[in-house]
C-alpha cells in the first residue's frame, strides 16, 4: 500500500511502486481468474451469447423433429416456415405438420422458456438470499403450487376454467406460498436473507404435509399421479393456449432481472455495504421477491417443479463467465434453455411411448455435476 501524493479523487497519484506490481503479477499463479478475464470482455460475451442463441435455435429445430415420428431438420424447418409465414403444404403432409406445429413446437418452446426462466431466477435467488445452495423453489413456491394443483384436481374446484383449472390452481398456490413466506419472514420492514430461506424451507415442509394429507384422503389414484407430475415436472401438457402468457411473463422477467445485474452484485456484498453504496437492500429484496415469485409461479403452473436446473445452471455459468450478475444473467437463460430442450427430448424419447419425469433426468445430470462442481479446486462456493 502506498501513501498517495494526492487524494484519490483528484490526483493522478500512480506511485512509483506500480512498476513493482508487474513482475509480481507475472509470477502469480494463473488460476480461474485468467480464463475469466479473457471471457470478461464485452465483445467476447456478445459473441458467446450469439453462438448460444444459434445453438438454441438449432436445438429447438432438431428437438421438434425428433420423437416417435422422426422428421429431418430440413423438413421441420419447412413446416415451421409454412406455419409462420402462412405458406402452403401438400395434403400428404398434414399429419406431419400437425405433429410438428400443434404438438411438438409448443412443447419445445415451453421447455426453452422454462429452462431459461429457471436458470435466471436461480441466479437472482442465490444473490438475493445470499446462499449458493438456493434454487427457485427454496421459497416454498413449488410446494405451494403442488398443493394448489392437487387441491384443484381432488376437489374438482375451478371446473369452469376447464383444462386450465390445474394451472390456475397451481399459480394461486404458488402466490399464497410466496405471500406467507414474505409475511412470516419480514420484520419491521426488514427482509433478512437467512430468515427468508429458513422460512421458505419450513413452509415447503408444511405444504408437503398438506399435500400428503390431501393424497391420503383422496378418493382416487389420479391425485397420486398428479403429485408425481408436480414434484418431477413435465411439458406433456404444453399447448399453444398457455404459451403466450408464459412467454410474456418469463421474457419480461428475464429482461427485468438482467437490468438488476449490478444491484445483485451490490446485494451480494452484504447489506451494510449495499447501504453504503446507496442501495436499500430490503427494498430491492422485496421487489425481487415479487418478481421471482411471479415468474416461478407461472413456470411451475405449466410444467411442475423441475429440480436442479435453477440450482446448477447459475454455478456452471458463473464458473465460466465469473460472478458479475449482468454477465451471468445474459448467459444463464440461454444455457438453461438449451439444456432443458435436450432434457425434454430425452424425457419423451428414451423410453417411448412412456415419458420420464423431467426431474429424474435433471437430477441424473444435475447431481453429479453439482458434486463435481463443489469438489473442484479453484471454484469457491460462496466462501463456504
Amino acid at each position, binding site marked *: *500500500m*502506498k*501513501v*498517495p*501524493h*494526492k*487524494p*484519490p*479523487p*483528484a490526483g*493522478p*497519484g*500512480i*506511485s512509483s*511502486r*506500480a512498476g513493482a*506490481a*508487474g513482475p*509480481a*503479477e507475472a509470477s*502469480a499463479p494463473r*488460476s*480461474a*481468474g*485468467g480464463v*475469466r*478475464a479473457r471471457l470478461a470482455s*464485452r465483445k467476447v460475451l456478445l459473441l458467446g451469447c450469439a453462438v448460444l442463441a444459434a445453438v438454441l435455435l438449432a436445438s429447438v429445430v432438431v428437438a421438434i423433429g425428433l420423437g416417435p415420428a422422426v422428421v429431418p431438420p430440413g423438413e421441420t424447418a419447412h413446416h415451421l416456415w409454412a406455419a409462420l409465414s402462412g405458406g402452403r403444404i401438400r395434403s400428404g403432409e398434414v399429419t406431419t405438420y400437425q405433429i410438428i406445429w400443434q404438438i411438438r413446437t409448443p412443447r419445445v418452446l415451453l421447455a426453452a422458456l422454462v429452462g431459461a426462466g429457471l436458470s435466471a431466477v436461480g441466479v437472482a435467488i*442465490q*444473490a438475493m438470499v*445470499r*446462499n*449458493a445452495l438456493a434454487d427457485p423453489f427454496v421459497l416454498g413456491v413449488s410446494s405451494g403450487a403442488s398443493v394448489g394443483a392437487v387441491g384443484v384436481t381432488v376437489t374438482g374446484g375451478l371446473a369452469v376454467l376447464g383444462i386450465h383449472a390445474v394451472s390456475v390452481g397451481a399459480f394461486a398456490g404458488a402466490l399464497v406460498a410466496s405471500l406467507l413466506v414474505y409475511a412470516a419472514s419480514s420484520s419491521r420492514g426488514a427482509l433478512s436473507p437467512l430468515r427468508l430461506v429458513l422460512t421458505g424451507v419450513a413452509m415447503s415442509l408444511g405444504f408437503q404435509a398438506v399435500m400428503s394429507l390431501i393424497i391420503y384422503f383422496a378418493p382416487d389414484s389420479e391425485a397420486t399421479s398428479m403429485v408425481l407430475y408436480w414434484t418431477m415436472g413435465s411439458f406433456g401438457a404444453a399447448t399453444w393456449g398457455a404459451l403466450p402468457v408464459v412467454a410474456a411473463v418469463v421474457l419480461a422477467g428475464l429482461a427485468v432481472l*438482467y*437490468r438488476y*445485474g*449490478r444491484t445483485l*452484485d*451490490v446485494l*451480494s*456484498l*452484504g*447489506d*451494510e*455495504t449495499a*447501504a*453504503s*453504496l*446507496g*442501495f*436499500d437492500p430490503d427494498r430491492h429484496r422485496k421487489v425481487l421477491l415479487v418478481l421471482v415469485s411471479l415468474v416461478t409461479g407461472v413456470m411451475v403452473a405449466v410444467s411442475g417443479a423441475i429440480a436442479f436446473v435453477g440450482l446448477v445452471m447459475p454455478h456452471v455459468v*458463473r464458473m465460466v463467465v*465469473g*460472478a*458479475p450478475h*449482468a454477465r451471468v444473467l445474459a448467459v444463464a437463460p440461454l444455457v438453461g434453455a438449451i439444456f432443458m430442450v435436450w432434457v425434454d427430448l430425452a424425457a419423451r424419447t428414451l423410453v417411448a411411448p412412456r415419458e420420464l419425469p423431467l426431474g429424474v433426468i435433471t437430477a441424473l445430470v444435475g447431481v453429479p455435476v453439482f458434486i463435481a462442481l463443489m469438489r473442484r479446486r479453484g*471454484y*469457491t462456493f*460462496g*466462501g463456504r
Partner: protein
Amino acid sequence: MDLELDGLSVVTDGKSLVRDLSLEVPAGRVVGLVGPNGSGKSTALRCVYRALRPSSGTVRVGEQDLTRLPLRHSARTIAAMTQDGGVDFDFTVEEVVALGRAPHLRGNQALSGRERDLCERAMDQLDIRHLAHRGVLTLSGGERQRVLLARALVQEPEILVLDEPTNHLDVRHQVDLLALLRASGLTVLVVLHDLNLAAAACDRLGVLSQGRLVASGAPADVLTTDLVADVFGVKASVVPHPLTGDPQLLYSLDSTR
C-alpha cells in the same frame, strides 16, 4: 465537507446502543472513535453510512440532514469501509473495486475510461494491482481489507467512514493505511481499536463508553492514564512519542502497578 453527529441516539429492541452522541468532524480532518467492545462505535458509524436509521438526533453532511437525502445521493458523498467484508460469490478484486462506482451509474451501465483509470489508481494506492484478477474469496484478510478501502476510494467520496480498517493488516499496511487516510484530504471518521495508532493518526479523538461520549478532543488531551483506567479498565502509562510527540500508551499486565 463537514460531518456532524447531533444528539444521535439509537435504540434497538429496547436496548440503548448510542445515547445523545454529538461529534463534529471538520472538513479534511481525521477524527477517531475509540472505546471498549460494545460501546456503540460501530452503531454510530452505521448511522453515518446509512445502514441504520437513528432513533433520534441527526447526522448532517455540510448542513444537510442525511435522512432527507436519497440513499444513492448520500453514497456519492459518503463512502464506508464496513466490517462485513464477506462476499458471496467469487468476484475478482477488480470487479469488487469497480462496484465502488455503483452509486454513480445507472443499472448495468459500463464504466467510462476515466472510471476505469480511477479504479486502477485506487488499486495502485492500496498495493493490490497485482491481485486485480484474483478472486476475492482467495485473498487473505488483510488483502481483502485493502480491496474494500480501494472500493470506498473509487466512490469518490468527500467523507470516508471506516470501521476498524486496520483489522487483519500487518504493521506495514496498518501504518500505510492510516498515512493514506491522513494524506487523502478527505473528511474521515474512523473507529480504531489500537489507541496508539489512533493517537498518531487522528486530529481529534472521541471516546465512547456504554453508548455515551465521555471525552473528546486532541489525542494528548483525551488519552490520559485516568481515562484509560476508567473507560477501558486498564493500567497504562502515557508517554510522548520520541519523534512525533503524540501520546503513546504503555500497558502493564499487572493491574496493581
